[in-house]
C-alpha cells in the first residue's frame, strides 16, 4: 500500500468518526415552495457550525430538518438522505423521539414553559423516565451551572420562569436542553431577541459548550458567526453556496456571492 493510500484511508476513517450529520442531496418543499435544494453538508463532532444567509434562504428549515421538527408543517415533502451517526433519520422506522433526545434545540425566542425554573430544567429528564428526586436535583443544578445561570437562579428555583429576564430565559432554555444530555445542540438565532450584554453571555456559553457538544447555530449576525464558529455554511435561496472553515470563508471566500454577502453588498 502506498503512503498516499494509507493517508487517504486514515483520513476517511477520521472523517467518518468525526461526522455526526451527513446530509446527502437533500431537497425540501413546503407545498410548491422549493425551500432546500440539493443540500450536501457534513457536520463534525465538537465543532460549532454556523449557518448564515439572507432572510428566507432556508436556514431555519435546514436546522429543523436535523431534528425532524420541520415535519410538523403538514405540506412538507423531502427527498435525499440525512444520516445521524450513520443512521438514516428520514427512515420511516426511525423514531423522532430518539433523534430529538440526542439532538436538542434552542429556539430564536426564549420559550420556557409556564412552570418553575426547576420544573423547566427537570422536564426533559422526567419525560425520559427519571423520577428520583435526588437525581433530578443533581441534573437541574448541573445543567444550570453548565448554562452559567446557576448563581442567578439558585434562590428562585421554585419561581415561575417567566419572571426571569429575556437573557436569563434563553440561558434557562439552554440549561433545559443540556438536561437531556444531547449529543448535538441546534440553535436558531439564539441571541437575536437579546440585548448586547446577554448576547455576549450566551456567546461565551456556546463556546464553552463546544468542549462537550456539537453545535449548529443559525445566525444573522456575521460577526457572531466569525467569532464563535469553526465552520460556516452560506445559504442562498435554499442552496449551499459555500461551506468552509470559518476563517477561510470570511477572509477568502471562493464564491462571488459569498463575498457580496459577507461584505454587506446584499442580504
Amino acid at each position: 500500500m502506498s503512503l498516499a493510500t494509507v493517508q487517504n484511508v486514515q483520513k476517511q476513517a477520521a472523517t467518518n468518526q468525526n461526522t455526526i450529520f451527513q446530509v446527502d442531496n437533500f431537497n425540501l418543499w413546503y407545498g410548491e415552495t422549493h425551500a432546500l435544494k440539493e443540500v450536501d453538508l457534513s457536520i463534525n463532532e465538537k465543532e460549532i457550525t454556523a449557518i448564515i444567509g439572507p432572510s428566507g434562504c432556508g436556514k431555519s428549515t435546514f436546522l429543523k430538518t436535523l431534528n425532524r421538527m420541520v415535519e410538523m408543517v403538514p405540506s412538507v415533502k423531502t427527498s435525499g438522505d440525512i444520516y445521524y451517526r450513520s443512521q438514516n433519520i428520514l427512515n420511516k422506522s426511525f423514531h423522532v423521539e430518539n433523534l430529538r433526545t440526542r439532538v436538542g434545540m434552542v429556539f430564536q425566542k426564549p420559550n420556557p414553559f409556564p412552570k418553575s425554573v426547576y420544573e423547566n430544567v427537570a422536564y426533559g429528564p422526567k419525560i425520559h423516565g427519571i423520577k428520583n428526586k435526588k437525581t433530578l436535583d443533581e441534573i437541574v443544578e448541573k445543567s444550570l451551572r453548565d448554562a452559567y445561570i446557576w448563581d442567578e437562579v439558585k434562590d428562585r428555583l421554585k419561581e415561575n420562569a417567566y419572571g426571569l429576564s429575556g437573557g436569563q430565559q434563553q440561558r434557562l432554555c439552554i440549561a433545559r436542553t443540556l438536561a437531556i444530555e444531547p449529543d448535538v445542540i441546534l440553535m436558531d438565532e439564539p441571541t437575536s431577541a437579546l440585548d448586547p450584554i446577554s448576547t455576549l453571555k450566551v456567546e461565551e456559553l456556546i463556546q464553552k459548550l463546544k468542549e462537550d457538544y456539537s453545535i449548529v447555530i443559525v445566525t444573522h449576525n456575521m460577526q457572531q458567526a466569525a467569532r464563535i464558529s469553526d465552520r460556516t455554511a452560506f445559504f442562498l435561496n435554499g442552496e449551499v453556496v459555500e461551506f468552509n472553515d470559518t476563517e477561510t470563508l470570511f477572509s477568502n471566500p471562493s464564491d462571488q456571492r459569498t463575498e457580496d454577502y459577507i461584505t454587506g453588498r446584499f442580504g
Partner: protein
Amino acid sequence: MNYMDIQHVQKKMKTRIVKNNILKYIFLLATVIGLVVLATLIIRVFTQGIGAINVDFLTGHLSTAPERAGIMGAILGTLWLMAVVIPVTIIIGIGTALYLELYLKEGRTRALIQTNISNLAGVPSIVYGILGLTVFVRAMDLGNIVLAGGLTLALLILPIVIVAAQESIRSVPQHLTEASYGMGATKWQTIRRIILPAALPGMLTGSILAISRAIGETAPLTVIGIPALLIPFPEGITDKFTALPMQIYYWTLDAVLVEEYAKLASATIIVLLLLLFILNSVAIIIRNKFQQRY
C-alpha cells in the same frame, strides 16, 4: 407635499366626536334594555316564589296538593342528570377535540367533520330529544331513565363543548409544544404536561357553561317522556326521574287550573338558578386557579 389638510380635518372633527358619543349611548341603551328585562324577570320570580321556599318544599315528595308538594325528587333528578352529563361531555368532548386538533391530519376528512360539528351545534334541542327517544329510550331499550336523559343532554351540548375545547387547544402557544417535542417528548407526554395544563381552564369553563345550559333544558326531556307526577325519589341513573326544569314546565302549564302552582314554579326557578349559579362559580374558580400566563 401634504396629504393631511389640517383645516379640513378640524372642520370634520366635531361631527366625528358627536358620532362617537351617539354610538356610545346606543351601546349603553342596548345593555340597559337587556339588564332591565332580566332584572324584571328575576324580581318577579323572587317576589312570587320566595314565600313558597321552606324546608318541607325543598325536601318533600311531589304532590298534587300545592301546600304539600316538595321538589326533592326534581333536585335529585337534576343532580343525577349532571352525574351523567358532566363526565360524558367532558371525556368525549375533550377526547374528540384532542383527536381533531392534534392527531387528525389536516385535509378533507377533518374539514368535513369540523363542518358537521359546527352545524350540529345549531340543531334545535327538540331534535336531540327525538334522537334520544329513538336511540336510547327505544332502540337501546333503556326506557325514560336518568341515563337516557343524561346521554341525550350530553349529545345536545357535545358540539359546543368540542368546539370550545378545540379553541382552548389552539390557543396554547406553539412555541411551548415545540419546546416539548424538541426534547423528545411523545405526543401524549406533550398533551399531558404542556397542552392540557394550559388548555384545561378554557376547556372546563366552556364545558361547564354548556352543562348549565343542558341542566336548564326541557324540550329534549319532554320528548323522551318525563312523568308529570313522579312520587318516589330517583336513587341512581337507572331510575325514572323528573328534573327541575320539567317541574317548572308542568307547574307553569297547570297554573291555569291551580293558581298556587305558579308560586311553586317560581320557587323551583329560584332553586334552579341557585344551582346554575353554583355551577358557574365553580367554573370561575377553576379558571382563576389554573390560569397560566405565557
